């Protein structure tokens, strides 16, 4: 460690102002602060010192994503071997999934970080760790079969038009990872929906055994075939076709636990998303005019991207509501709308992505009204006191 520190210190003058590589200053700083705690200290005034910076926050989210990632790797292999009717050990499933998933993750990180590095050089910003989480989230919400060039294009779209245009990390209105998915969803629907895309190799039909459909629970429901649904336990553990990281509710709940204990993710948002889904689910159960509406409400929590969205997407501190009361409203409406879109809109089998993007747009408005009402309430409380003073 010490030798590394020495080396960095030796290189530093070259990258400071007036040095040989002054233009690459932010790249250097990015690497330095990736290895060591930044040596910059403030000289004036008092500041609250806390070790929880952007880097630490992002690292915790990455750790929270690990269970879902590992299960996604395993499930990619599992679904593949099921589709060709082969028995495979857990290790083989992992191996297969790893080889399939690794290119996706590499492409997502190289594209996104490349653009962020370039943007930071152009604008003279520091490189920050904002993309670390996005870069892992993007592959996790994709079908395993997505072509790499599409993934790169979607990542570029999300980083440039979803983030850099608004001023970079922390300034974006929409969740960049969901924006990448939405871009592909509307651009290449053939690769993002249907029964073929969720299992490796299903599209070209090699060695697929009869009777393997590859349909996700949501597409079964949308087709009205609720009787064919996998069991609740299968959907809970996640051994079903679906986007890479979203299938296992157990793994996602583990991640949620990490986020809540460390205080990185807001438990209020997670709880209220589920509450919103519960309310809509119960309402649909009460109306129940078709098979989909009759589906028990708790099934909605384990199907599709509901749990993943609630834990990892809705809790994004940048795009979500900031006020404490606002978080309840924001989360509730996400859950409520996503089930509504899911069941009542035949065009979109899954509503979570669109519900979160829509509420991202409304989050500032929610905060605006919450703050406004707080100010009004306090003014009311303050007025009698002021009047007393006047007398």
């Amino acid at each position, binding site marked *: 460690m010490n030798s590394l520190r020495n080396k960095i210190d030796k290189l530093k003058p070259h990258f400071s102002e007036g040095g040989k590589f002054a233009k690459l200053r932010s790249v250097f700083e990015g690497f330095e602060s990736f290895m060591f705690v930044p040596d910059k200290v403030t000289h004036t005034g008092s500041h609250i010192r806390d070790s929880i910076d952007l880097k630490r926050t992002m690292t915790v989210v990455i750790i929270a994503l690990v269970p879902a990632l590992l299960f996604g790797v395993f499930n990619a292999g599992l679904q593949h071997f099921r589709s060709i009717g082969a028995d495979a050990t857990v290790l083989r499933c992992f191996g297969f999934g790893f080889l399939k998933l690794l290119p996706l993750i590499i492409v997502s990180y190289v594209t996104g970080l490349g653009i962020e590095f370039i943007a930071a050089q152009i604008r003279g910003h520091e490189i920050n760790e904002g993309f670390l989480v996005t870069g892992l989230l993007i592959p996790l919400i994709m079908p395993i079969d997505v072509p790499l060039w599409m993934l790169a294009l979607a990542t570029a779209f999300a980083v440039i*038009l979803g983030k850099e245009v608004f001023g970079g990390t922390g300034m974006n209105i929409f969740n960049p990872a969901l924006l990448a998915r939405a871009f592909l969803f509307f651009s290449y629907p053939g690769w993002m929906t249907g029964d073929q895309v969720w299992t490796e190799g299903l599209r070209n039909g090699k060695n697929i055994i009869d009777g393997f459909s590859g349909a996700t629970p949501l597409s079964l429901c949308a087709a009205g075939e609720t009787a064919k649904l996998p069991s609740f336990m299968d959907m809970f553990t996640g051994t079903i076709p679906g986007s890479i990281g979203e299938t296992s509710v157990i793994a996602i709940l583990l991640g949620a636990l990490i986020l809540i204990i460390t205080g990185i993710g807001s438990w209020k948002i997670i709880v209220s998303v589920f509450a919103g889904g519960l309310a809509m689910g119960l309402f649909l159960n009460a109306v129940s005019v078709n098979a989909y509406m009759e589906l028990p409400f708790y099934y909605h929590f384990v199907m599709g991207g509901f749990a993943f969205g609630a834990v990892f997407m809705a809790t994004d501190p940048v795009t979500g509501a900031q006020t404490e009361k606002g978080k309840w409203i924001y989360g509730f409406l996400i859950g409520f709308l996503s089930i509504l879109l899911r069941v009542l809109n035949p065009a979109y089998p899954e509503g979570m992505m669109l519900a979160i993007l829509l509420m991202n747009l409304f989050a500032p408005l929610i905060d605006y009204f919450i703050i406004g009402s707080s100010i009004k309430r306090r003014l009311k409380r303050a007025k009698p006191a002021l009047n007393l003073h006047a007398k």
Partner: protein
Amino acid sequence: MSNMEKEPMFSMKNIKTLTGPLNKNNPITVQVLGICSALAVTVKLKPAIVMALSVTIVVAVSNLVIAAMRKYIPDRIRIIVQLVVIATLVILVDQFLKAYVFDVSKQLSVFVGLIITNCIIMGRLEAFAMANKPWPSFIDGLGNGGGYGIILIVVAFIRELLGSGTIYGYPVIEKLGIYKTGYENNGMVILPPMALILIGLIIWFQRSRNKELIEK
């Protein structure tokens, strides 16, 4: 008046009236007018070109007509008079399109009629033709129609190429054999939101080249 001597037809001032709207004073990217039709008719190049020509003709001729009678239009009813002139011209253009390019006229459908409400035309009449002589007004109309047309054609070119894989109906992507590499047409480019994003990108590009357009 002492300075009654004739201004040459293409004086510096007139040339500026003509070229200003093409870039620095573009009706779409700078004044942000006429956005709706720019989103609606730019899926393919052919309707976009026809639309650009129609709007140019309407705005130039209505500028000419209004400028010629500007001194006789009572101020309080000027909007109605302007609308009558525009509507007459739009109906003429519509009939012409129906007679000679029926397929494009069908594609453009209601948007030809909606030229009447295109803010660029009313804007030019109010801002320019009501205060200038016929000839400069005509040139101003041509310039603004051209500025509108350029953006329409650029957006339509990108949308047709990426969304349908053709340029003016010619299947370039297929002929070049790009589909075989796994490339696919982008469905989102066909949707109006992407047209809005494209116009945004054009505005971005224009302002990064032209620093005086950047607001403080």
